[in-house]
């Protein structure tokens, strides 16, 4: 009984270490085989359409609503201190620094990451990947790398659109609906948001999230057991693992980027 438990623990640990090693090797393999993704850029463009363009609607709509909620809640709180004009700062900083990259990444993980995993998992289950190998076409170069770079390119654009849309939503609620002064809304925002410290760091964050999400999604798809259950399990794991990775990475990046401030 006890021996069994210890054996299980050991097996699990070995399995975990093996998976980390395999995932790292897979990630390096993607980077090494990225040449095709750029030489035949049409492949990458196709994938940008599927993971980027098709995520637009959900990103834009959620961005608008998140901004509108920020506008309402921010006004309620700031009003008690008599500083409603700082609403622009609150909306812009929280979107550009945190909510834009993080929420866009979470939406991207569930919208595009799960689709990538399911697609590659099914390709593997229906032996399309093996067929490619038979024809001397490297599936990593032909299928995996374009999806990886498409995700890395799409993610910062989506995050920027999310933030811009959110600020517009905050403006709609704060200025148009509640009646905060328009001039001070924008000018206070401009004086508080710094290009390098805030906007550029937000873009860096979203690039890192893009790398993490697509790498996890591709790995899970490529590693999925070739059964219906296997693919569905892999899709679930993609969403869970990449969401957790985004939130954990966000903490680490924030600690690095904004510790020196103030």
């Amino acid at each position: 009984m006890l021996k069994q438990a210890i054996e299980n623990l050991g097996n699990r640990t070995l399995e975990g270490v093996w998976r980390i090693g395999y995932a790292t090797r897979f990630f390096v393999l993607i980077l090494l085989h990225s040449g095709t993704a750029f030489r035949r850029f049409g492949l990458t463009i196709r994938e940008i359409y599927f993971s980027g363009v098709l995520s637009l609607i959900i990103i834009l709509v959620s961005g608008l609503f998140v901004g509108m909620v920020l506008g309402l809640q921010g006004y309620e709180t700031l009003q008690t201190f008599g500083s409603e004009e700082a609403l622009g700062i609150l909306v812009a900083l929280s979107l550009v620094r945190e909510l834009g990259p993080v929420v866009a990444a979470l939406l991207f993980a569930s919208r595009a990451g799960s689709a990538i995993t399911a697609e590659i998992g099914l390709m593997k289950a229906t032996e399309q990947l093996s067929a490619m190998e038979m024809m001397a076409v490297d599936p990593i170069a032909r299928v995996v790398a374009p999806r990886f770079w498409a995700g890395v390119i799409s993610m910062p654009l989506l995050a920027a659109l999310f933030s811009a849309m959110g600020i517009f939503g905050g403006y709609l609620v704060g200025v148009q609906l509640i009646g905060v002064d328009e001039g001070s809304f924008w000018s206070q925002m401009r004086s508080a948001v710094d290009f390098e410290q805030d906007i550029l760091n937000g873009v860096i964050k979203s690039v890192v999230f893009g790398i993490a999400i697509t790498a996890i999604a591709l790995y899970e798809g490529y590693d999925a057991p070739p059964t219906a259950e296997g693919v569905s399990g892999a899709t679930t794991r993609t969403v869970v693992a990449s969401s957790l990775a985004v939130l954990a990475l966000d903490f680490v990046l924030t600690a690095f980027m904004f510790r020196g401030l103030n």
Partner: protein
Amino acid sequence: MNKKVLDLWVGLFVIAGIAALLFLALKVGSMSTVNSTDSYEVVARFENIGGLKARAPVKSAGVVVGRVTDIRFDNETYEAAVTLRLDKRYAFPKDTSATIMTSGLLGEQYIGLEAGGDSQKLKDKDRILITQDAVVLENLIGQFLYGKAQEGAPQ
């Protein structure tokens, strides 16, 4: 899907994304770090900088003319050496004075420059000689109480 339509959509997506980035960069944020080609650095020494922080604005007549880039403690004179990066468009006389001020009662601290009458202008790496420290509320209250006590003391 038709390849042309696909390219069109991706092109639109990329343009929209870059437009959003530009909107954030131009409309929402501002370049606070003046780049080194059109700015110059001067150093001011203070005995007490209070709560002044790097990146705090440098204002003259209420207009932002530069930023604090670096704050260092000088172990020889036991003073704070504050580096100010000023926009090249604004030249100040050599006897300009620097004061640490607070915007509002509890607002952020900034450096106020008051131009003097010297005909020579401040150049890169120059030092501002006339400085006035930050007002520390505790000291002020202490002085006030001390003064009151002196008043009441029997002569």
